């Protein structure tokens, strides 16, 4: 599903060269639930940007679902993001003062999916994350956990190759964080590929595989045999 080989990202700020990613190689198979862990400054955000097709690597190659995402134009990147990646951000990033339905339909609008189909799918995914009773609430009327669930539904809307979550529980209360993890595990059980970037061990243990990053390199890549399962209420 994902194949990253000899990936490097070097930032040039004036005379100083900062190596954010240094020769990273790994792959993720379909149906995996991977946590990428590391302290701040380890390069995990840079990796997330590249995996999310928000940025391009300086060296190396990145294959996503059979497509090469190493050297593409801006608009093609937008297209890849639209079709292949479901984003879940730390700050939720919903459109302000806009209904949940509209928020979930946004990526489908950009994909040119007809309205009736959009409505059907948005409702389906909102029900899946337990917000079937909040379809026409405005985004700012929802709690943090609820907003993040809207974001998950939006991430699922285009039925993407991967769900890419960047510190998905960073901005919400820990009780609600467990709900989010429960949803991730349920989606993973249904076959969705999930990559989650986090710096919290407590969150990472919900994944089935943990990749540790330090100083731009993979320091450890392990199967999480003690995956913490959350039973949905």
């Amino acid at each position, binding site marked *: 599903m994902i194949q990253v080989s000899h990936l490097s990202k070097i930032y040039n700020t004036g005379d100083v060269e900062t190596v954010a990613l240094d020769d990273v190689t790994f792959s993720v198979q379909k149906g995996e639930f991977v946590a990428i862990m590391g302290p701040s400054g380890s390069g995990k955000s840079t990796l997330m*940007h590249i995996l*999310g097709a928000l940025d391009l690597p300086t060296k190396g190659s990145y294959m996503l679902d059979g497509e090469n995402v190493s050297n593409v134009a801006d608009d093609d990147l*937008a*297209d890849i993001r*639209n079709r292949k990646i479901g984003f879940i951000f730390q700050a939720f*990033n919903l459109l*302000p003062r*806009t209904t949940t339905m509209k928020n979930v339909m*946004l990526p489908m609008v*950009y994909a040119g999916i007809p309205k009736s189909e959009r409505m059907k799918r948005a409702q389906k995914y909102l029900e899946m994350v337990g917000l079937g009773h909040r379809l026409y609430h405005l985004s700012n009327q929802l709690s943090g956990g609820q907003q993040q669930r809207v974001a998950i539904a939006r991430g699922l809307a285009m039925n993407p190759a991967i769900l890419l979550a960047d510190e998905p529980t960073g901005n919400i209360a820990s009780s609600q964080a467990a709900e989010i993890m429960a949803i991730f595990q349920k989606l993973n059980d249904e076959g969705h590929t999930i990559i989650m970037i986090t710096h919290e061990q407590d969150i990472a243990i919900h994944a089935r595989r943990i990749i540790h990053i330090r100083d731009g390199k993979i320091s450890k890549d392990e199967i999480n045999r003690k995956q913490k399962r959350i039973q949905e209420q």
Partner: protein
Amino acid sequence: MEYAELVQESIGTLVVNKLRTGLAILGIVIGIGSVIALVSLGQSSQQAIQSQIQSLGSNLLTVQPSGQRSGGVAGAAGGGTTLTLEDADAIKNSSTITTVKNVSPEYAGREQVVAGRNNTNTQVIGVQPIYASVRNVTMSQGSFITDQQVSSMSKVAVLGSTVVEDLFGTGANPIGQTIRINGQTLTVIGVTASRGGTGFQNQDDIIWVPLTTAQKQLFGESYLTSIAVEAKSAEVMVDAQNEVGYLLLARHKLTDPADKDFSIFNQQDLLNTVNQTTGTFTTLLAGVAAISLLVGGIGIMNIMLVTVTERTREIGLRKALGAKKKVIVTQFLIESLILTFIGGIIGIGLGVLASYIYSIVTASAFVVSLQSVVLAFIVSAGIGVLFGWYPAKRAANLQPIEALRYE
């Protein structure tokens, strides 16, 4: 992504930010509104002045004596005594004159006029009956001066409506009453319909008497103060002016046109001059209005730029979710177009309303040229694109990572 969707999306964001939207629209409303209002104000005053000049008679040439010269000092124009009734008859009858329709010899002076216990100082003009047709005079009561009254030197007078008000009071019927001018008693035989002249000369503040009565009984003079000449058409005005000019030069035994003791005023010249002046006036007003339109446009750009900064995260999100550059540019352009479109429509409405109110208040013609409406509309759309372009471009070029990080 279809345009209909983009329009919906844009309307959505505009509705969500009502205050910002309202302020941006206000700038355009004021700009477009003032363009429409000021241009139509200019055009309506132009029409008013034009019709006022034309109401004084059409295709009119006015011959006046030049100021008398004594020892090289020139007197006031019209002050001379060189025009005579014979000159007027010659203009009417000469075989060299082919372009003249009517000739009206006139003697005018200011006099104190008394009726009962009221008196007024007004213009008294001695005329022949042809005056009414040459100078476009119509009657509201009684009749105008007749040939018989001219030849018999009758002591009769026709009053303008202002004179009636001054001497007899508003709404009074003066027919058959008498007025006194210079010790002579005249009987009122008619009142003219109001010509509404304000401005340089009130055309209702005049008393008309038979030419002979004015010359011999009231003023004791034999010359004319002016001869009004009506040309056969607007096209032959210049020919008529030349024919009359040469005839009078010959009659006054002058060989050098520079020595002429009369001058001929062409109404068309006056009209042209006035048109030019009011045209300049209108252009000036439009210029002032255009500046406010420009300010409105810059206001739109300002608001749109603020919008781009304020919505950096939103734009980043849209790009992350798959919006291409073109989609972002189009959305922002559509937003500014909608702003200017709505502002333009409200502005046109308010501008038309303002000029309508102006026309009622000043009792002038209500003129809104389609041209200025269409132009204002195109300009406002143009402003939408022009001033929306830069903010839209900036929004589209935001990097999604930077935009998402932006707090």
